C-alpha cells in the first residue's frame, strides 16, 4: 500500500461521513479514524464480523456476513424467516421446488423450512431467475440465513 493510496483514502474520508475505515489485505492492516463525536449505533442490526462459529456443528451453515459478496448489486437474497431445517423438495422423493436457472413467480414456493414438526413453505416475493442455491438439502438454517440468490426479471 503506497502513500498515494493512503492519502487518497484520507481525502475520501474527509468528504464523507464515514468515521472509521479499516482495511486488511495480505500483510497490511490499515485503520483510519476521523475525529467525530460519539459513534452512532449500527443500523439495521447487521454488523460485520461473522460471529457464528460452528465448526461442523449443525446450526448456522452459511455466514450472513458473506451475503454481500454472494449477490451482485441488484440481485435479491432470499433469507430464512425462521430457524429450522431446509428442504428443497416437498417430499423426500419429490423433485426440488426450484433449480438454478429456473424462473420463479411471486408466491411460488422455493423451499420448505421444517420447524417443530411443521412444514413452512417459503415463497418467492418477486419474479426472478434462480442464480444460486446456498444451502444443501436437509441442512439446519438460522434466522436471516441466505438461502437463494435471485436475479430480478
Amino acid at each position, binding site marked *: 500500500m503506497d502513500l498515494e493510496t493512503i492519502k487518497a483514502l484520507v481525502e475520501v474520508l474527509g468528504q464523507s461521513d464515514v468515521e472509521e475505515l479499516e482495511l486488511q489485505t495480505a500483510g497490511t492492516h490499515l485503520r483510519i479514524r476521523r475525529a467525530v463525536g460519539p459513534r452512532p*449505533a449500527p443500523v439495521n442490526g447487521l454488523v460485520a464480523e461473522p460471529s457464528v*462459529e460452528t465448526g461442523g456443528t449443525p446450526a448456522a451453515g452459511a455466514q450472513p456476513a458473506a451475503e454481500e459478496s454472494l449477490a451482485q448489486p441488484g440481485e435479491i437474497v432470499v433469507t430464512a424467516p425462521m430457524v429450522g431445517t431446509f428442504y428443497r423438495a416437498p417430499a423426500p422423493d419429490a423433485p426440488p421446488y426450484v433449480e438454478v436457472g429456473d424462473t420463479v413467480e411471486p408466491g411460488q414456493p422455493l423451499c420448505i423450512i421444517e420447524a417443530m414438526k411443521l412444514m413452512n413453505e417459503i415463497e418467492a416475493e418477486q419474479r426472478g431467475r434462480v442464480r444460486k442455491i446456498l444451502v444443501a438439502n436437509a441442512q439446519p438454517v438460522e434466522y*436471516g440465513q441466505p438461502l437463494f440468490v435471485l436475479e430480478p426479471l
Partner: protein
Amino acid sequence: MEFRKVLVANRGEIAVRIIRALHQMNIEAVAIYSEADRDALHVRLADQAVCVGPGPSAQSYLNIPNIISAALLTGVDAIHPGYGYLSERADFAEICESHGIVFIGPPPAAIQQMGDKAQAREFMRQAGVPVLPGSDGPVTSEAQALAVAKEIGYPVLIKASAGGGGRGMRAARTPDELQRLYHQARREAEAAFGSGEVYLERLIERPRHVEIQVLADQHGTAIHLGERECSLQRRHQKVVEEAPSPAVSPELRARMGEAALRGVRACGYVNAGTVEFLLDEEGNFYFLEMNTRIQVEHPVTEEVTGIDLVREQIRIAQGEPLGYDQADVVIRGHAIEVRLNAEDPARNFMPSPGVITRFHLPGGPGVRVDTAVQQGSVISPFYDSMFAKLIVRDADRAGAVARMRAALDELEIEGVATNVELLRLIMSDPHFEAGRLSTRFIEERILDRLAGEGGRGHG
C-alpha cells in the same frame, strides 16, 4: 443425566454468566442471538450460536418456535432461560419438556402457581407463610374494596394479580382515594397484563425489601442461603442489593428462611428460587412474591456463601442431590451489588443507548464484574439498559461500602450516560452507611441531591 450441551435462551450479562458456568462444568454452550446481537460477547463465548430473529425481543429472545427449533437442531440436553424473557413462562417450560429438553428451572406447575400474585399469596398464607392482611383473593367491585379496606385498615395497596414492576399498583390512604384509584389500577392492569384483576393489601409505609434465596433439589432437600436486602429501588426497579441485610439478625434470618422453605416445600418447588418479603421496622415480615428463576442480584449471595448459584441450578436440573444441608451454609463477610444502567438521570433516567467508547473496570481484591460489554460494544435500544453489575465483598459492611466507593471512583465509562453518579450519592449517604434503608430511600434522600448536583450522569 449429565448434560453435554445446553442452550442459553438469553442475552447480556446473564447469558455470559451461564456460559461461563457451563464451560466450567465442561458442558458445551449454545447461544441464541438477535440480529442486533451478532457481535455480542455471549455469542463469542459460546461454542455454537444460532440467530433466532431480528432485534426486537418479541421476535427473537421471546420467539419460542425459533428457540425450540434452535435447541432441537443443535441437539441440546437442556435450556437455561436466565432471568426475564422466558424464564417465568410455564408454557415455555412445558414445551421444553414435551420436546424432551430439560428446562433448567422449577416444574411448570410451580411457575404457574407463583406467577399469579393473588393466588401465590393465598397459597403461601395456607402454607403458613406470613402475608400482609388483605383481601384473600381478588377484589371484584368498589364496594368489596371499601369493605376489605375497612377491615384491614388504611393505608392499603391495590395490586394487580398478574402484576409486576409496579404497574397496576396504587396506594390509597382514605376511602375516597380508594374509590378513585381502584378503577385506575384496574384499567392499568388490564392494559399492561390483559387482566384487570386486582387485590388489596395493607400498605407498610417504609418497608424494607428483603428476599430469601432458596435451593431445592429433586430429592427433597430444600435449604435457604440467607437473605438479600434489595430496598434500594427506583420505580420498583432494584438499584443496589446487599447480603446480608443490615436489618436481619441470625435469629430473624432463621425465621425468614424457615418461612420461605415452608412455601417452597408446599408447592413442590425444585431448583433455585427467591421468596420476597416486606420487612417492617418492628421486624415483622410478610410474603410479597416468589421469583421462580435466578435473580439479577444473585451474586451477592454467591459472594457471602461461596456457593455458585448458576452451577447449582444446572446440577439440580441434572438430578444431582445438593450434597450439603442447611448447617453447611455459612454467611461470611458482606457483599454489595450495584446495577450499572445506560440511562440519563438528567432526562428522567431515559435509556441512553450508544457505543461504549471507553470502558475501564475496577479490579483487585473483592471486586467482581458481571458484564457482556467491552470497550466498543453497542448498547442497543432494543434491550434492557442494565449493561453491567459491579459487585464487591469485604469482611464487613463498612469495608464493602468503602470498596464500592473506591470501585465507583475508578470506573470509567464514556459514550453513554449512566447512573454512576446516583450510585456514588447512595454510597456516600450517611443513612446508607448506617444501614437505614427502605424502599423509599432513593426517592426521599437521593433524587433531589442528584438534581442538586446538576442531575448529570457522571463519566
